[in-house]
């Protein structure tokens, strides 16, 4: 059976357009569409696992047309976004407005589009869809803090979009092409100065979405203001898609020692800033938000080690993404009440925290393990020391968090169950053997 990857985007878009016609059953319709999409994303993952990189042409063959290019990492991310999106939707069942369901579907479709497209302008379009849907979803709580966060996010996000568009225009002016792999093949012909300016613009623009230092001023306010379900969506959806877009930028389009070095030190700065700020917070959601920033820095470091240690860099980012997406979204759901009363929530919270700190055999451990191997193969001892240091800070504030949140009070089932299921993913991905094979398929740089 041929799996059409374009259905991952087309079906949620079609259903988002359809929902205003069937307002009364919109909740159940959304659940069934999200389930259908998760099944599709699992099929796509197995297709990539069996056949390697898959392409899907849309309308015309590239570079005059657009195609989707799916490697192992983007198949994994599509799976995470769609499956976690379906699970996380359970926690937002209280929302009755059909427009909320439409925006949820659009955010899922947009972030899936970012990771599976092979065309740089198409990526920009999906960035726009994801960002606009996220602004509205963040503000959907309608509290003062939520609106403040949404406005900050909107201003920074639209500035970032402008930068992305400028960067794409500069690339197109030189290469006369928008296809990522076509550009990558001929990047050496580009004027040096324009190449650097467009790289800077793209990194700045995507960095806003990917929560990189110093573009992440919106992050704590947004995560604090948004309702728990939406904070969880943002932590596994748009931010992960954006960090993957940076990986494509870095590894596929602009592969050079200098770009890796820039990314490495931005990653280290993001990591340290996030972890130290998280340690100083008193509010649980703000602490989790800063911790998210730190984890994004860690993922960026993993991507930037690609020049010598591609053997370790891709698996490291693979496991770090899984661990962060599952554990952090589970903790954001826990932060709804911050009380771990029942056994289920205790299991979920403790698994998530252990995975983030990096305890074997959870996914977070394998991520940090490969990260250290990669950094050691490049002889970056300072980076290793800094990652150790930030790991200790992380363990300290998460221990404090666990200590404060264990209590008698119980959470609603609509939060407890998805949370436990989400943190099970970091356990499962650490234990399943086929994941290792998948992580070691180095497809990102092309075939």
């Amino acid at each position, binding site marked *: 059976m041929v799996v059409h990857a374009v259905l991952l985007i087309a079906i949620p878009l079609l259903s988002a357009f359809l929902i205003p016609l069937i307002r009364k059953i919109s909740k159940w319709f959304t659940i069934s569409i999200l389930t259908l999409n998760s099944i599709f994303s699992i099929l796509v993952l197995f297709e990539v696992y069996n056949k390697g990189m898959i392409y899907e042409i849309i309308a015309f063959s590239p570079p*005059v047309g657009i195609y989707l290019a799916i490697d192992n990492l983007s198949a994994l991310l599509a799976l995470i976004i769609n499956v976690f999106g379906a699970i996380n939707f359970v926690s937002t069942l209280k929302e009755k407005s059909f427009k909320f369901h439409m925006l949820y579907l659009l955010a899922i479709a947009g972030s899936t589009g970012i990771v599976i497209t092979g065309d740089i302008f198409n990526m920009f379009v999906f960035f726009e869809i994801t960002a606009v849907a996220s602004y509205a979803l963040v503000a959907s709580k309608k509290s003062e803090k939520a609106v403040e966060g949404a406005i900050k996010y909107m201003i920074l996000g639209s500035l970032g979009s402008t930068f992305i568009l400028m960067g794409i225009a500069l690339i197109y002016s030189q290469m*006369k092409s928008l296809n990522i792999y076509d550009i990558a093949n001929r990047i050496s012909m580009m004027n040096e100065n324009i190449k650097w300016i467009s790289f800077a613009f793209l990194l700045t623009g995507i960095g806003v979405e990917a929560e990189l230092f110093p573009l992440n001023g919106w992050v704590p306010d947004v995560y604090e203001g948004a309702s728990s379900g939406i904070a969880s969506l943002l932590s596994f959806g748009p931010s992960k898609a954006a960090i993957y877009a940076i990986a494509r930028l870095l590894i596929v389009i602009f592969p050079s020692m200098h770009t890796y070095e820039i990314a490495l030190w931005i990653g280290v700065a993001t990591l340290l800033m996030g972890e130290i700020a998280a340690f100083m917070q008193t509010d649980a959601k703000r602490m989790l938000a800063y911790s998210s920033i730190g984890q994004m820095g860690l993922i960026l470091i993993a991507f930037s080690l690609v020049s010598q240690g591609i053997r370790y860099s891709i698996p490291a980012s693979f496991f770090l993404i899984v661990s962060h997406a599952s554990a952090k979204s589970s903790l954001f759901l826990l932060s709804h009440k911050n009380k771990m009363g029942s056994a289920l929530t205790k299991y979920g919270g403790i698994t998530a925290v252990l995975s983030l700190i990096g305890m074997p055999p959870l996914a977070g451990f394998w991520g940090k393990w490969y990260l250290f191997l990669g950094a050691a193969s490049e002889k970056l001892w300072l980076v290793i020391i800094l990652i150790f240091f930030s790991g200790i800070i992380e363990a300290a504030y998460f221990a404090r968090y666990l200590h404060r949140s264990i209590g008698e009070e119980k959470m609603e089932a609509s939060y407890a169950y998805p949370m436990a299921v989400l943190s099970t993913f970091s356990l499962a991905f650490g234990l399943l053997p086929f994941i290792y094979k998948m992580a070691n398929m180095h497809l990102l740089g092309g075939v």
Partner: protein
Amino acid sequence: MRKQASVVITVIFFLSLTFAFYQISSSYNYMENKYDYTNPINESSANESVPQHYIKDTKNETGAINVVTAIVVEYRGFDTLGEVTVLFTAATGVGFLLYNLYSRKKNKREANLILREGSKIVLPFALLTGAYIFIHGHLTPGGGFPGGSVIASGFLLMMLSYPKFFMNEKRLSVLESLAGITFVLIGLFGLIFATYFLQNYLNLGNVGYLISAGIIPLIYIAVGFKVGSELASVIQNLKEVQE
């Protein structure tokens, strides 16, 4: 301090842009001989650039005279689907967030006689022009987005001249959804009847006639209805807040 910082950042931004565009113009001759593109899938290369391909082969491949339309709807139709969705998302978000502030008061003095009577005469022509622009998108300049905006501007004129003018929001959203569904279904039919999503599977017809270019006019009519109803509903939502 903040003001100065923002001024510095703006200056740096513009200087780097100026520098980049200066580089483009100065390296123009040098660029002429790198016009070959590589096919990323088959690794075979052709000796023309993507823009050249658009200018030379549009008529044969898509049947549209207007190259811009062919690029927007055919070659990069997936981007257009995305852009339509961006607008849809923004309209949905505005409607979602402003829903609580809904209140319709009787208010306002009427507009003057000239505006009232004039807008009655102008409205049908505005709608007709909008429809003309998007139906003839593949033949003349224009297309779904400008046509839809012209239609929405007709409704804006009615709102300005009659304060009580009110559009049924439910009908607008039904129209919007139907247009969006049409666009995606045309794409999915491409997957079913031909090989690719959004592929032009209809007969291209005689180049230059109204009924030609396969799915391009169909998509542009859908886009025109969609943009028109979306912008009208955004205006409607904002008007309710103001009151």
